[in-house]
């Protein structure tokens, strides 16, 4: 391994490759900030540039830099504008945006930068050590386990259910799942619930729904109640995190780096599930007083998904490099780029072309460091977006919301769907229905149904639930995670009644 590391370091530290990492991170960050352009589209755009270079190591290093940069850029728009352009950064907006509204935008971006750096770096160390071993573990996961894992991912809804609100959170999740069934399913190729409308054949767009659920109601609330718009006086204060805050998020970063990495290793799971699961787990294991802070600007609630999504991005390279299996949409595009560069990823990549394998790993360390060094000094300038006067900021938020939906689908009908869903989301927000579970249900719905269908076909029914112990174990965990908040609320109510009765 040491020899490989030296080869990788030598390749990654060449002037050309260092320039590639820096360029990739910068391009990824800036384009990733635009809602609607996620890592998949940015990497797809950059592939012709990468291939034209001819050097596979340099090309992969550039694309990996773009990947990390785009994830970081996506977090920035989630935190500052509540406009997550990628599914993997949705969970970052749950606490990042409330922090920005409380005038702690600088601190939120600092935590995001540090958590991303730590998640990516620890993930790269784990990749270096475990890559060959993990590829065989990932193969043990079949569709039944994936189905159960998605159900555990959906149990994140419990984290958004306030006291006595599990019913509402459940309803929103099921509504998200229902919305995911609209259009042609990947498994059946039959149009469902489209009402004969051609534009609905491919289903609702994720970006449209994300913008409608988060950015649009938030902008409308800012219009309705102008006093709350933006930060108090436009001054970006409080960039540093205190020692106590660092100590409180350190275990979260440690746990989520490992959990996020292992979820990223599983083909099909990826940054989205890792971030939701990271958020849900941290919320559930936090003490009661900290649990109440989740969703209102908790630093743990921001650090968890930020760490997990970066660690998962690194983890997703394990099946790609060692088995040649793309674990996510983004790594599928990277696989295409590798093949175009005449590189065959798989078990022999490490042996036949060690300079590529190790150079990519070393570039991950360098890329994370570059992102931290570039972004930390830029935070005060990035966060100044909140100091823009409301009369200009709100039309721009609405414009980027519309652009996000338009670029994603290149269809003007999508904009009308966005406005319609935005109005519905605002009404739901008035009635105190949590919107995040709806989006989680929508994102995981397609994967959940496909894995459920595959398992049903393989086992000719639902016997896979009890015939596969890992599946059963995961489903039991999910049930506990969903029912626990209701049980806690009931116990607290009974205790309060007992006190009132003089028990």
């Amino acid at each position, binding site marked *: 391994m040491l020899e490989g590391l030296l080869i990788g370091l030598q390749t990654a530290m060449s002037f050309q490759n260092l320039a590639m990492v820096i360029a990739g991170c910068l391009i990824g960050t800036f384009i990733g900030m635009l809602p609607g352009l996620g890592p998949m589209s940015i990497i797809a755009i950059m592939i012709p540039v990468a291939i034209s270079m001819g050097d596979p190591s340099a090309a992969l290093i550039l694309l990996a830099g773009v990947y990390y940069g785009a994830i970081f850029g996506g977090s920035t728009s989630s935190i500052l504008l509540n406009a997550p352009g990628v599914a993997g950064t949705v969970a970052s907006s749950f606490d990042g945006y409330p922090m920005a509204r409380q005038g702690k935008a600088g601190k939120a971006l600092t935590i995001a930068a540090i958590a991303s750096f730590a998640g990516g770096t620890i993930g790269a160390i784990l990749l270096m050590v475990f890559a060959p071993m993990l590829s065989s573990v990932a193969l043990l996961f079949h569709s039944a386990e994936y189905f159960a894992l998605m159900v555990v991912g959906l149990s994140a809804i419990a984290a958004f259910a306030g006291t006595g609100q*599990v019913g509402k959170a459940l*309803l929103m999740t*099921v509504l998200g799942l229902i919305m995911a*069934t609209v259009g042609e399913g990947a498994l059946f190729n039959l149009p469902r619930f489209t009402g004969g409308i051609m534009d609905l054949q491919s289903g609702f767009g994720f970006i449209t729904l994300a913008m409608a659920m988060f950015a649009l109601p938030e902008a409308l609330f800012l219009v309705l109640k102008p006093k709350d718009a933006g930060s108090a006086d436009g001054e970006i204060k409080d960039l540093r995190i205190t020692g106590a805050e660092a100590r409180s998020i350190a275990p979260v970063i440690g746990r989520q780096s490992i959990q996020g990495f292992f979820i990223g290793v599983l083909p099909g799971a990826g940054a989205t599930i890792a971030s939701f699961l990271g958020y849900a787990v941290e919320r559930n294991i936090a003490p009661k007083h900290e649990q109440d802070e989740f969703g209102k600007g908790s630093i743990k609630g921001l650090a968890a998904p930020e760490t997990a999504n970066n660690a998962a991005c690194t983890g997703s390279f394990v099946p790609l490099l060692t088995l040649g299996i793309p674990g996510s949409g983004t790594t599928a595009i990277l696989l295409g780029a590798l093949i175009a560069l005449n590189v065959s990823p798989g078990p022999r990549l490490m042996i036949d072309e060690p300079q590529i394998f190790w150079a990519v790993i070393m570039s991950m360390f360098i890329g994370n460091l570059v992102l931290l060094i570039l972004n930390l000094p830029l935070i005060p300038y990035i966060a100044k977006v909140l100091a823009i006067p*409301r*009369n200009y900021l709100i039309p721009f938020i609405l*414009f980027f919301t519309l652009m996000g939906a338009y670029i994603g689908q290149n269809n003007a009908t999508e904009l009308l769907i966005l*406005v319609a869903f935005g109005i519905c989301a605002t009404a739901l927000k008035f*009635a105190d229905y949590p919107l995040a579970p709806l989006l989680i249900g929508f994102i995981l719905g397609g994967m959940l149904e496909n894995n459920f269908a595959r398992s049903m*076909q393989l086992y000719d029914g639902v016997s896979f639930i009890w015939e596969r112990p890992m599946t059963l174990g995961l489903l039991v965990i999910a049930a506990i995670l969903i029912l626990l908040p209701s049980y806690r609320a009931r116990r607290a109510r009974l205790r309060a009644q007992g006190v009132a009765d003089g028990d």
Partner: protein
Amino acid sequence: MALDRWIALILLGICLTYGYTAWFTMDASLAPFMKRNPIWPSTFPKVLSVLATLACLSILLGLEKSEAKEPEIDYRRLHEYKLGQAVMLLALMAAYALCLRPLGFLISTTAFLVLGSFILGERKWLVMIPIALTATGVVWYLVQEVLGIYMRPLPGFLGG
């Protein structure tokens, strides 16, 4: 009845319609060989319709006791907020969606940004127009020229 229950009632209607389609009409067009599968395109929707109906009923019947909390915006006092501005911005967004193709990106976007600021009370035309024009130009250049995503810049009669 509180707003959340009214919404639950509307959602119940939607879920029942969804459920009716899943349970009674969807399988009619299914090819015979697909009916031998253990799972049909309607299986998952059927499960979801039952879950959604139960969740709606639990809210409608108030089975879960929740603590009352201060809403961010009280919908009963909506008239006290800037409702007119919010409605006008929504109408502007719909108009933007309808005009984007026929008027082209540059004219529609500049008009959207200027009118959006105007609705919110801005009257400094000398600031508003240059900002809107610059932002529109930069975004168009970035999306069309750098990223290569086609967006018609001008109306057809102007050569767009």
